[in-house]
Structures are given as structure tokens and as C-alpha cells.
């Protein structure tokens, strides 16, 4: 088949059917952008799971220093009350007595944790370290206004099985002296993963709807184009052009439009990733709390979209030509 003849036929066809081609380009761009977004969300979830697999811990927070807390609750109130009593007896300051008691309770907890069979690892995070870590995840302005003592010290604990042992762990330690609370990182992470999963599902739904619109648009475009070129194709058939020769220009036109749409989608995906991960979640991404996506991820998502789009366009065009158009 003479490439130049086919190419010039395709170019003429696109020029003649410009508005429809533009509509097709735009709708495939949107559809494929959502396909890409779904793929990116999927990769992000995978990255998250990979990054945090086996690293999920439970935090056991100790009572914060009383000056920072207006009304200490439960265990911490008991601790403060005891410190005030001791201060009256000894004549030392409440803060000194509090720190002494706090230290004893902290050590008692350490001893209990070390003996606990469901606990496989314990590490102590001091107030200083807690603040240091926090500062890494927030914008500089917030980081500057956070002081040591704003955040409590804690034990970071690895449980043998975080899913089954967490409730047991809470029941055992929630009421211990010196404990202000516990958190489960996996539940925080789960919320985040649910959000990303929601984004993925939403993208898939939009992609499906817009893809259906694109398929119908391809079918319509081809029927209109075939009607416009009835003269030409009937002559082609009469002089013995093969079926491929008559159909190929129509198929190529839709494939070219889809390819351009796919490239635009790639741009949209790159822009969307830039906006969400590099602007909205700038700091946590920079510090590695939220896994970043690189150019490779964008190319994979966009490239998959482009290839899938082209295949879909070619198949739709082929089916339309065979089923609905008599060339």
C-alpha cells in the first residue's frame, strides 16, 4: 500500500471533518486522563503499601508536661495530683516532682513492655525527637512555632501482629499510670489509603463514562465521514481497491485523533500529579511521608492510556466500518 497516498487521504479526511475530530480528541483526552489518574492512584497505593509494609507501629503516648496541658485527663491527672502532693511534702517544685514521678512511670512501662509477649520491639521517642519528627512533616512556618514540650514523649511499639493484637494492647496499657493515649498508625494510613482508593474508583467511573462517549463519537464520526466520502469510496470499490485500502484511512483518522488525545491526556496527568503531589502535599512528599510518583509512573500511566486508547479506537472503527457502514 502506498503510504503517501494513505497519509494524504487521512490528512484530507481530518481537515474535512475538523470539528468532529477536535471533539474526538478532547473526549479521548479527558477519558484517557482519567484512565491515567486511576493507574497513578493504583501505583500510589502500591507505593504506600510497599513503603509501610512491616513498618507499621503503635504509639503509646506518655503524659505531656503539665504546663502545656490545661486540664490533664485520667492517668495524667492522677500523675499531676500525686506530684502536687509530693511537692507539698518535700518542698520542691511541682515540676520537679512531676518529672521524677513521670520518669518512674516511664521506666515501669518500659519494664512491662519488655516482658509483654505481644510486643516485639520498643523504642523511646523523647519530647525533643517527637518535635523534630513533626517539624519534618509540616510547612516551615508551623515548624518554627512548634516547641519542645508541645508534643508528648512516646514509646513506638512493634506488635507481633498489629491487626489482631492492637485491641489487646490498648486494653492492657490504656489505663496504666503515665499513659495519655495510644494510636495505631495503620488506622491513620488506612484512612489515607481509603481516600486514594476513592480517587481511583472515581477516576475509573468517569473514565468508563467518557470512554463510552468517545466510542459512540468514533462510531458517529466514521459514519459521517463515510457518508461524506461516499463518492470516493464507491469509485475505489469499483476500480478494485481492497477493503483495507478503503477502510484504512477512516481507521487511521480515528487512531490519529486518539493518539493526539492521548498525548494531551499525558500532559493532563503530568499537570495533575504536579498539582496534587508537588503543591498540595508538598512537604509530606518531600520528606517521604507520602510516596512521590516519578516521571516513570507518569509515562507508564499515560503510555498505557495512549496504547489502550489507540486499540479501542481501532477496534471501534473497524467494527463500525464492518457493521454499520457499507463502503
Amino acid at each position, binding site marked *: *500500500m*502506498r503510504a503517501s*497516498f494513505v497519509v494524504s487521504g487521512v490528512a484530507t479526511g481530518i481537515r474535512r471533518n475538523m470539528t468532529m475530530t477536535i471533539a474526538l480528541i478532547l473526549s479521548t483526552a479527558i477519558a484517557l486522563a482519567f484512565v491515567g489518574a486511576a493507574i497513578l492512584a493504583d501505583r500510589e497505593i502500591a507505593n504506600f503499601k510497599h513503603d509501610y509494609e512491616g513498618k507499621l507501629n503503635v504509639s503509646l503516648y506518655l503524659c505531656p508536661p503539665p504546663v502545656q496541658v490545661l486540664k490533664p485527663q485520667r492517668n495524667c491527672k492522677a500523675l499531676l495530683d500525686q506530684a502536687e502532693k509530693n511537692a507539698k511534702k518535700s518542698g520542691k517544685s511541682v515540676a520537679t516532682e512531676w518529672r521524677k514521678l513521670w520518669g518512674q512511670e516511664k521506666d515501669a512501662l518500659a519494664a512491662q513492655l519488655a516482658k509483654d509477649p505481644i510486643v516485639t520491639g520498643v523504642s523511646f521517642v523523647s519530647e525533643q525527637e517527637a518535635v523534630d519528627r513533626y517539624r519534618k512533616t509540616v510547612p516551615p512556618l508551623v515548624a518554627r512555632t512548634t516547641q519542645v514540650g508541645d508534643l508528648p514523649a512516646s514509646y513506638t511499639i512493634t506488635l507481633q501482629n498489629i491487626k489482631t493484637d492492637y485491641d489487646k494492647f490498648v486494653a492492657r496499657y490504656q489505663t496504666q499510670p503515665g499513659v495519655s493515649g495510644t494510636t495505631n498508625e495503620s488506622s491513620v494510613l488506612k484512612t489515607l489509603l481509603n481516600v486514594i482508593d476513592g480517587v481511583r474508583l472515581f477516576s475509573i467511573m468517569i473514565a468508563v463514562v467518557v470512554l463510552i462517549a468517545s466510542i459512540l463519537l468514533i462510531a458517529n464520526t466514521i459514519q459521517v465521514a463515510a457518508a461524506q466520502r461516499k*463518492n*470516493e469510496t*464507491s*469509485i*475505489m*470499490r*469499483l*476500480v*478494485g*481497491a*481492497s*477493503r483495507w*485500502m*478503503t477502510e484504512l484511512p477512516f481507521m487511521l483518522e480515528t487512531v490519529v485523533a486518539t493518539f493526539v488525545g492521548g498525548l494531551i491526556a499525558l500532559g493532563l496527568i503530568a499537570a495533575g500529579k504536579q498539582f496534587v503531589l508537588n503543591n498540595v502535599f508538598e512537604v509530606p512528599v518531600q520528606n517521604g511521608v507520602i510516596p512521590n510518583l516519578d516521571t516513570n509512573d507518569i509515562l507508564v500511566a499515560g503510555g498505557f492510556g495512549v496504547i489502550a486508547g489507540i486499540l479501542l479506537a481501532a477496534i471501534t472503527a473497524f467494527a463500525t466500518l464492518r457493521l454499520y457502514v457499507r463502503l
Partner: protein
Amino acid sequence: MIRLDDVSKVYPAGARPALEKVSVDIDKGEFVFLIGPSGSGKSTVLRLLLREELPTKGTVVVDNRNVGKMPNRKVPDLRRRIGCVFQDFRLLPKKNVFENVAFALEVINKSPRVIRRTVPEVLDLVGLTGKAQRRPGELSGGEQQRVAIARAFVNRPLLLLADEPTGNLDPDTSQGIMSLLERINRTGTTVVMATHDNNIVDAMRRRVIELDNGRVIRDQNRGVYGVGR
């Protein structure tokens, strides 16, 4: 070259058959007029030969191929051996004369070199030398039909089918087209021409096959349009 053997054709919507038990043999190199009133089945015969239609019954053989039993993928090859000319010329208005003729070669994958050589030759044959760059809209009816004939003949077909090629032309111009078809016939190409034009048929004195209501009612060598009319 052509054999129709007991051919009937019934269109799905038609109450009566378009062709009924038609048997005709046409040899290589013959010039045959297919005559008869509108609806007598002339066009149906041409459509069967081109395999635009399939016979309901009987066999249609063109160049030793059973057209009715031919698989779809072989149809283009059959059509490359058949040239077609119509009453309404069917030229592409946006292409010039050269491009209109070249189009027939391009779509069957002839090389640009072959096209550059063949198209001027055939334009010369039909008497359109010097008009290669004109568009159909700039030509007279007779000249447009010459372009159509050039396009039909450029691939040197074995068989040329002409469906009322002079239907839109005045008698003088028609005469020119007929001598052109005759010249093509002299190169060995079989010509089958459906027509209403009694003057032409009478003047040419070639084989005449007359159809009426889908039946062959006359098949006469060196015939005229209407016997005793």
C-alpha cells in the same frame, strides 16, 4: 469471457424478478449493446457482472471465474479486470483530470512511476491531451465522460461495462464517445453497453441483446434498436 447461465435475480422487496432465466454468452473482444426499457434488467446484468449483486439462481462467469461463488476477498481482483463507465460520470470534483485517472491506479497500489507513465498515455487515447490540469467542473459533459472512460480503461481491463454512457450527452458528443468505445474495443477489450439510445445502436450495427421484464427477448448479431419500429 462472460457467461450467464439460467440466471435469475429477485430483489428482496421486488414482487417480480429483476431477471428471469437469463442465459447469455459473450466472447472475448465482442461489442454488445444491452437494450430494453427502464426496469427491464439491464443494470442488474451489469451489477451481477461486477458482483455488486449476487444471482438468486444460476451462474455468472466472468473471465473464467464463477462470480456468484467468489469469496469477498477476491472481489477486488475481479474488479481490477473490469472498467466501468456511468451516465453520471462519477468523477471526483476536487481532483483534476490527471488525479481522477491516477486515483484508479493509486488505490490498487500502482507505483508513482507507473502512474506518471500510464495516465498521460490514456489521456492521449481519449483525446484529452492538454487538459490534465482541469477540474471536472471546467469540462464539458463529453469531456467529463472521456475522463471517466480514461479512468475505466487506464488499468487495461479485459471488460468495459458502460451503463448509459451517452445518456446525458447530445447526439454529436455521443457519437464521439461511441467512437472512443469502439477504439477501445479494437484493442481487444470486451465492451458491454447498456443504452436507450436507438440512434447509436442503429448506427453501430453490433450485437444487440434486448431485455424485457427481466427476460432476454432478442439476441441478434449486427442488430438495430427496434425491429420494425
